[in-house]
């Protein structure tokens, strides 16, 4: 039983880690968590769904188009809405992302209604791999693998490509970056595009698991947010680790204690951690100079 629980935890943790990573990337740039991210990802998943069911496209084509859509949505949101906030205090930016989230949620609900749909995926959630005398869900394995590959790719991108380094520079000190010739406005837009794509991958991995409806990303967004906070909002590695930690704790608690309140327990743990480390486990605490 334990290996399955752990595998389940890692699988759920992968999704939380992806969401957390997406959150942290944009948080570092704007100082504000992008609440709209969940719904942006959900809409992208619906785009893939519509392509596959109404237009009979293959999975991989639909997947790719959905990611492109997600990218454009992310860049568009930043350019059209976020950048134009005239008094960009943290509260204002936060509220704008909340507003966009609500609007997207409403639009998706209006267009597609509340019915739950089966999301076509090359791997069925019912298949299982046998390793020894343990059977682990194939979908879970796929989720973990895809997530890990993506995250490694993202970290490599940040480390080794010119654009990635530019993004990091902008995140740390946009003024200094701009002085050094980094096109910060474009970089910020691209950051949002990238974050949206990562979120969309999480949604596309989530959809076959729990069926597709407009509330698809609510739980993952919350958990991803909690994971990012747990790991530290300005530490991408910490956020990813936080995601896996959260997934494991949740699943272990659910398997051995009680399934029903496992989300509440997750939040309780977060609150406890924050009591002792107010900026997360891995982050550094900043204080303002007077």
């Amino acid at each position, binding site marked *: 039983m334990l290996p399955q629980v752990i595998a389940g935890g890692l699988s759920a943790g992968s999704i939380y880690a992806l969401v957390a990573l997406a959150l942290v990337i944009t*948080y570092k740039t704007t100082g*504000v*968590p992008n609440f709209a991210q969940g719904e942006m990802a959900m809409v992208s998943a619906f785009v893939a769904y519509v392509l596959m069911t109404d237009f009979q496209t293959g999975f991989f084509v639909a997947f790719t188009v959905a990611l492109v859509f997600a990218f454009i949505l992310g860049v568009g949101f930043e350019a059209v*809405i976020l950048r*134009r*906030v*005239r*008094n960009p205090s*943290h*509260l*204002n930016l*936060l*509220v*704008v992302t*909340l*507003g*966009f*989230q*609500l*609007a*997207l*949620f*409403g*639009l*998706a*609900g*209006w*267009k*597609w*209604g*509340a019915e739950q749909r089966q999301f076509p995926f090359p791997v069925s959630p019912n298949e299982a791999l046998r390793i020894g005398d343990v059977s682990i869900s194939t979908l879970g394995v796929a989720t973990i693998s895809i997530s890990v590959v993506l995250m490694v790719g993202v970290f490599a991108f940040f480390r080794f490509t010119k654009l990635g380094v530019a993004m990091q520079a902008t995140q740390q000190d946009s003024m200094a970056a701009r002085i050094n010739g980094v096109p910060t406005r474009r970089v910020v837009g691209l950051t949002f595009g990238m974050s949206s794509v990562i979120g969309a991958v999480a949604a596309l991995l989530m959809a076959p698991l729990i069926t597709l409806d407009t509330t698809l990303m*609510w739980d993952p967004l*919350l958990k991803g*947010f*909690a994971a990012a*906070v747990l790991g530290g*909002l300005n530490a991408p590695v910490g956020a990813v680790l936080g995601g896996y930690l959260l997934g494991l704790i949740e699943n272990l608690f659910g398997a051995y204690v009680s399934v*029903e*309140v496992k*989300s*509440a327990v997750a*939040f*309780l743990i*977060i*609150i406890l951690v*924050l*009591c002792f480390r*107010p*900026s*997360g486990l891995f982050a550094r605490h900043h204080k*303002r100079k*007077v």
Partner: protein
Amino acid sequence: MRSTQDYYADVQLLRGRGAWIKLAILLVVLIVLPLVLPGYRIFTVNYMAIFVIVGLGMNILVGDTGQVSLGHAGFLAIGAYTTVLMMTELSAPFPLALLVGGVVTAGFGFLLGLPALRLQGPYLAIVTLGFGIAVTQIIGHSAFFGGHMGLVVPDATLGPIPLSGDISQYYVIVGTTLVLALCARNLSVTRVGRAFRAIRDSEIAAATMGVDVAYYKTLSFALSAAFAGIAGGLLALMTGFISPGVFTFLLSLMFLAMVVFGGLGSIPGAVLGSIVMGYLNLEMDAFEELPLLGPALESFSARFMSTAGLPNVGWVVTGLLIVFTILLEPRGLHGVWIRVGAFIGGRRRDTDAPVGASAGSGAGSGAGPGGPGADSSDPPAGAS
């Protein structure tokens, strides 16, 4: 040299005969309203009043003290369930149950305020978010609270008067709203309200002025929660039935949205914003019935969207309202009001107009019509 009367004018609610007349008109309208409205419309007004109460509380926490809460639906739930359980388990009369509901919720508010002392913006947001969700989860999974099925609210009375009809409930709910609005307003213009706003504007300076920041932050949470708790008890009274499905994250979002839309830090703004959002939230299922717009929406939905999903337009509207508010006038409806006032005030240089905070809003939330530009007695500074 100013007289004592001038000083009191700074904080006085009703200044001059005009104010008393306006108050009288307002009271007459409110008293007569339920007698002329059809039944279901009274329900609508009651619902909006409950939103107003929550909005007043949110304004204290978010508008005045500058904190963030994404979990206020949780406080609404605690108030509702406490009130109902007081009545069912302890046979408490409704007024007492409501009061206890408010106090218990205040206690939870205080508890939620404790993390706020150490956590910055987004961290606080996630904690409040988690709180709201945890509350509904725990309620939903516990037989004592009726689980997912919820609880039926027993018949309530105010002394000998039964509170079973819309009209009697109206007087209780709207009456409570008025009283709470007055409380919020008084608090806002006196020492406690000023301390809240000091914390919002500069926590460090507030501390060096002698403000016990920890005390006032937790107090702000407790008060804000108390308002929501009372609103919850009244909601239970109105709807006759409570279940965890009512107190969602979306509702918490709406609570935040309405004070932002109305204008943070402004009581009239919070009231107006709450009225609008409360109406929107309630009428979401009935958009087809709007005159003119309804059928247009319906046919549009049938062609491009789905008719079953039409109620979601409410969320679209709410979301867009928030986005446009932040983009165009971050100070919300109150900000629009100030601009209109400045526009009019700039047109007529009225030297008789009192230079001071507009009646009903917290002192210092922006000069009313006739204020800006009226004095320019500063010597030019050396460097600005």
